[in-house]
């Protein structure tokens, strides 16, 4: 039996039996894994409330048949600032949902881990436009997993696609499509959105909050990544913007 220690994010939590939690954790070196925290729902539990969603926690665990068994847990960060804004919490939860959906159990993704850490840190700051941070998170996560939409060259012939407005975009082809290669079935994106995407990809996650993105571009960006994600991952990944609570 090997005992391991890891710093992880709590990305899912379900009640198990009368007083346990089964938590899905995502660590830098340990990747995504599920563990059981015995008695964690009880008031007198040694775990306290550390397994709140999105918390950063240091856990000690060992493998047993099936689920890992968590023996100790210590809170490192609970994002007090983020918890003052419904919109920020929601963006954080949706980002965790995406990690849950796209990563297999046991999958290690150091870049994705650093990305979620930077994302939650950004959401923790006050006066941040959570939706911009969230959009950028999706785009960067897709990229780390090898699914970056091609933005500058035609995804069919490889020639540069000029700044015409609108630009044709095909999730199937993997990105923008030039006029010559267009079959007429692509959908259209604004030249402004393409610029925003390029900027989001180039800007470190901790600094994207400073970028100027209009409401329309945000809507367009989420719609585009939704279609792109549905095609490449075969599932609905991005939740409707309307379900997001506004900041107080």
């Amino acid at each position, binding site marked *: 039996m090997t005992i391991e220690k890891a710093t992880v994010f709590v990305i899912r939590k379900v009640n198990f039996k009368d007083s346990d939690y089964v938590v899905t954790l995502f660590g830098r070196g340990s990747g995504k894994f599920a563990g059981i925290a015995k008695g964690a729902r009880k*008031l007198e539990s040694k775990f306290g409330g550390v397994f709140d969603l999105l918390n950063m926690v240091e856990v000690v665990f060992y493998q047993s048949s099936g689920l890992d068994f968590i023996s100790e847990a210590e809170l490192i960060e609970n994002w007090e600032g983020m918890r003052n804004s419904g919109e920020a919490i929601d963006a954080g939860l949706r980002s965790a949902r995406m990690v849950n959906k796209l990563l297999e159990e046991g999958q290690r993704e150091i870049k994705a881990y650093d990305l979620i850490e930077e994302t939650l840190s950004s959401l923790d700051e006050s006066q941040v436009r959570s939706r911009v941070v969230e959009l950028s998170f999706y785009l960067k996560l897709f990229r780390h997993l090898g699914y970056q939409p091609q933005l500058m060259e035609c995804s069919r012939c490889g020639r540069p696609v000029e700044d015409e407005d609108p630009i044709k975009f095909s999730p199937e082809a993997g990105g923008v499509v030039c006029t010559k290669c267009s079959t007429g079935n692509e959908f259209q994106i604004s030249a402004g959105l393409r610029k925003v995407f390029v900027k989001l990809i180039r800007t470190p996650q901790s600094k994207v909050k400073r970028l100027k993105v209009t409401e329309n571009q945000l809507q367009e960006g989420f719609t585009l990544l939704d279609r792109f994600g549905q095609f490449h991952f075969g599932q609905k990944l991005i939740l409707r913007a309307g379900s997001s609570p506004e900041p107080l």
Partner: protein
Amino acid sequence: MIEPLERVISEFKKLPGIGQKTAERLIFHLLTRDSDEVYRLSEALKGLTEEVKRCQVCGNFSLGDKCEICSDPKRDRGKICVVSRPWDIAKIESTHKYEGLYHVLGGLVNPIEDVSPEDLSISELTERAKDDRVEEVILALEPKTEGESTSMYIVKKLRPLDVEVSRIAQGIPVGRDLEFTDKATLGKAFEGRRGVD
């Protein structure tokens, strides 16, 4: 295994926390009891679907269209306490610190489990809060991530209405379920509730 046994086992296994082994153990236990006892259990289970309804007003468990609390003329109609699940009502009632009405949301907003505000009875709550008699809406949702986000969403929805919104969160340990909070703590949390601005 013979078919009737398999059928019961497969139904038991659908219950939370019950796997093949536990299901088998429970059923072998039942088989050793006398048939009257097993009959009473099956009748009680039948009553669950035939007699227990959800209150049309607040979502609490109920025998009729309206639950005992909603039909009680002594309850304070100026207050609505919002909880995520019906069993939270029993928990709060046990403190004897609250005499108003309730509203059951049916869960908490949680994108990770694909629960959006539209899946909960939030619009029903705002409709109820429009009643002139309602003066205060008390949010008794857990101070954990999903509870915070749900509370903030409701506060936003209620803001245009002429009602005071307060939260009981203070005093309940962060990250915990209401279900596991002790009576005394919950009672204090009720008395010390604070307005949300």
